[in-house]
């Protein structure tokens, strides 16, 4: 049985193992990586000779220079590597500068876990729910676009393919790049379930097998790094922007959770009924969806994806089959896999997982039932139907989402005070910058008319 903190199939290394591995792989540099409040991956690179000191948690950095991290007097932060995340970057293998990476937690200068560290926030959220969620595992389906780079290396929105769902385009650079991304991820120890062309031209999807919740969050940071690196070698840019083009499908991530163990044979269980914990978990997700949207869809651009098109979810509904429901429970997995379909890959993976886990657990704690599953498309729901079923609309802007976050103590609690305030301040500032900007659409619509 895997505990929620178990990183799936990832091996747990000790310090000696890590040092030996680094030596065997001729590692010259180690990137000690972490993410900031916005989910952007940062790193401190050390020569391999410093690895032992790093493994002892003695490498520090100036946290004051990271947005939303620390106040001035707490600027010195320590990096605490998670040894199970040790991986060599495959593209450096065989070169003179072999690089490995270790994903780190952040501690204050006196060694205490830093409450502003997103990875620590997720671990705390998981620990808080351990009693209720004894064995949750998580998988991801991640969508992204591969666009061409200009001659000067600037990303464009041009693609070299015109493919759609599951198309095969063998001469396409995007397809070749995706294949290499998958190979690279597997070489780094990630378990890829499948990969395919997505709906939009130049849009791709990579699906990861279930692992522990923390490992799933680590995997998303890894994929973003790897995809960008590999794509660049093909003259492409991998973007995880939620909605790069108005006329094409946006990029989302589907986060799925498998709740508990296979239920024991039970003469009272009906074949067509989900396990009660699964039902309560769905109820929790639907109840807290408006609030966790701020974290799972954290950019102003995210809300251009959450519209009634391309199967993006817009309402707090669940179903077995509807592709545009917020939560789906595919029958093919014995009704034990809960798929959350609203998040997008611009999220901070650790914070997104933290709020989703807290929402699941709150549903179980409060025994919140989710109503009946919806059949058919959610886009066809009338206002009357939505009212009768107490279905809410997902926030239509970052501002609305932040207001919903403010009003939800469960989701706020999952973030903790420090992260909540830092995240909220950053996002309000982002929204205000966006609100004040004059966009090309406005000039197109109004310049001549008025």
């Amino acid at each position, binding site marked *: 049985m895997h505990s929620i903190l178990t990183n799936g199939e990832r091996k747990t290394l000790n310090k000696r193992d890590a040092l030996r591995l680094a030596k065997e792989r001729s590692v010259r540099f180690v990137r000690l990586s972490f993410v900031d409040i916005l989910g952007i991956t940062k790193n401190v690179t050390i020569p391999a000779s410093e690895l032992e000191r790093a493994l002892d948690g003695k490498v520090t950095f100036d946290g004051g220079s990271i947005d939303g991290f620390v106040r001035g007097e707490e600027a010195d932060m320590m990096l605490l590597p998670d040894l199970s995340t040790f991986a060599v970057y495959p593209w450096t293998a065989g070169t003179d500068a072999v690089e490995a990476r270790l994903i780190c937690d952040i501690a204050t200068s006196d060694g205490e876990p830093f409450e502003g560290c997103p990875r620590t926030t997720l671990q705390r959220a998981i620990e808080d729910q351990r009693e209720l969620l004894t064995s949750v595992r998580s998988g991801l389906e991640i969508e992204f676009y591969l666009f061409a780079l200009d001659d000067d290396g600037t990303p464009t929105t041009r693609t070299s393919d015109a493919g759609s769902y599951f198309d095969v385009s063998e001469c396409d650079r995007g397809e070749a790049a995706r294949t290499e991304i998958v190979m690279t991820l597997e070489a780094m120890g990630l378990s890829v379930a499948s990969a395919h062309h997505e709906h939009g031209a130049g849009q791709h999807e990579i699906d990861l097998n279930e692992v522990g919740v923390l490992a799933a969050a680590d995997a998303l940071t890894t994929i973003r790094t790897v995809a960008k690196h590999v794509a660049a070698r093909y003259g492409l840019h991998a973007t995880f922007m939620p909605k790069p083009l108005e006329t094409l499908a946006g990029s989302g991530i589907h986060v799925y959770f498998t709740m508990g163990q296979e239920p024991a044979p039970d003469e*009272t269980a009906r074949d067509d009924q989900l396990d009660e914990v699964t039902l309560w978990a769905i109820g929790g997700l639907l109840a807290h969806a408006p609030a966790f949207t701020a974290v799972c869809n954290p950019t102003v651009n995210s809300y251009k994806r959450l519209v009634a098109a391309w199967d993006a979810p817009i309402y707090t509904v669940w179903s077995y089959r509807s592709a545009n429901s917020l939560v789906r429970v595919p029958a093919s997995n014995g009704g034990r896999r809960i798929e959350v379909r609203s998040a997008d890959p611009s999220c901070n993976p650790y914070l997104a997982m933290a709020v989703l886990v807290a929402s699941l657990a709150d549903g179980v704690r409060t025994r919140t039932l989710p109503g009946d599953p919806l*059949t058919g498309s959610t886009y066809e729901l009338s206002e009357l139907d939505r009212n*009768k*079923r107490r279905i809410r609309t997902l926030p239509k802007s970052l501002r609305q989402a932040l207001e919903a976050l403010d009003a939800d103590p469960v989701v706020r609690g999952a973030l903790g005070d420090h992260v909540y305030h830092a995240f909220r301040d950053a996002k309000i500032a982002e929204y205000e910058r966006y609100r004040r900007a004059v966009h090309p659409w406005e000039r197109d619509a109004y310049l001549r008319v008025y």
Partner: protein
Amino acid sequence: MVDSVVMSGEGLVDFAEGLARIASTGGGPKALAAYVAASLDAAVLVEDADWRHVALAGASTRSIPASAREPIGAAQRNGAEAAVRLPTPGEAPEGIAVPIRGGDAPLGWLSVFPNGGAAAPRIGFARLAAAAIAVELSRDAGGGKNRRKSFWDRLLARAYDDPIEARDDATSRGIPLAIGYVAVAVEAEGLEESSAQAKLGELRRICVDSLRSGTGEVVVLERGGGFVFLCPAPLEVDAQNARTAATLIPRHATKAHFGAKVVGGVGRPAEAIAAYRTVDEARESMFIARRLFGGSCVMPYEDLGVYPLLLRGGTTADDLRAFGDRILAPLRAYDEKHQTELVRTLRLYFDVGQNVKTAAAELSVHRHTVFYRLRQIAEITGNDLDSAHDQLTLRTAMAIDALNSHER
């Protein structure tokens, strides 16, 4: 108006049966007083222990004192404890007052004033009437719990014609009445007599724990050897959740090591004034669950298809048509909206003995299309075409539809 009963031994039995009939259908002191007045050709006054009027009936044909307090008080001072003769003004025959008692507790007095020409009331009739009224007054006088219970008993006995009257009465008894309710009937099977009471208490706790929600207090009513729970369901989603929670009760009982089979049924949502309907459906569903599904389950009425129709005697053509429409309406709506042929496909599928290949040929489509449509039909109607029970429901609905097709 009830005919006056004959003042005989047999008449006493008839009179007692009349009282019981009124009480069992939720009639309160007012209804009982009206019955006594009509039966005994008298005016009837019911006062509580504080001499407040509880009911007055038949007083339009003769004058009676405003209260029987004075003559009763005088008689009590003279040592009278049982019946008291009541002098009346003018030529009218004297009346009789009997105490209304709940055990040893005095609850009030019943005073009967016969009309001119009527026989003087016999004390036995008055005492019988007082006993029946005592049951009703005990309910109301027994504190908040009994007052509340009395309300639900009356509501389910269809004692209220007007929703506003029901709501006002509920409010006066401190009951927050929801707009609608879903009833869940639950019983345990095979309980040993020695431990039955304790086990029922345990079952009640398990059920309330399963059914509680944020929409209001679950009403618990003891019925026979089990319970009926009324779950507030102001919205459709609340009814859905109550139904889901009810179907989980057997699992919770198993997890709680309850040690006996739990069987139950869930009615469809109904407005508060029509709560009896959801209760009846819940009990019917429980009966069907026990007979057809072997117990250890709580079956929602909506999932039982044709069986409630078969169970109920005296089904009318309208009932049958309503059933057929209820089952097929979602398919028809889908066909109309999406220009599909799901109803036709289902009919053909049954007509050709569920042979997909033949159905495909008849419809001039590939057999995979038939499979796809059958999956759609199952999803839209909520009936599994591989289940014999669900097939019976769909076949019956199709048959009713075919028989009534000329009306369409």
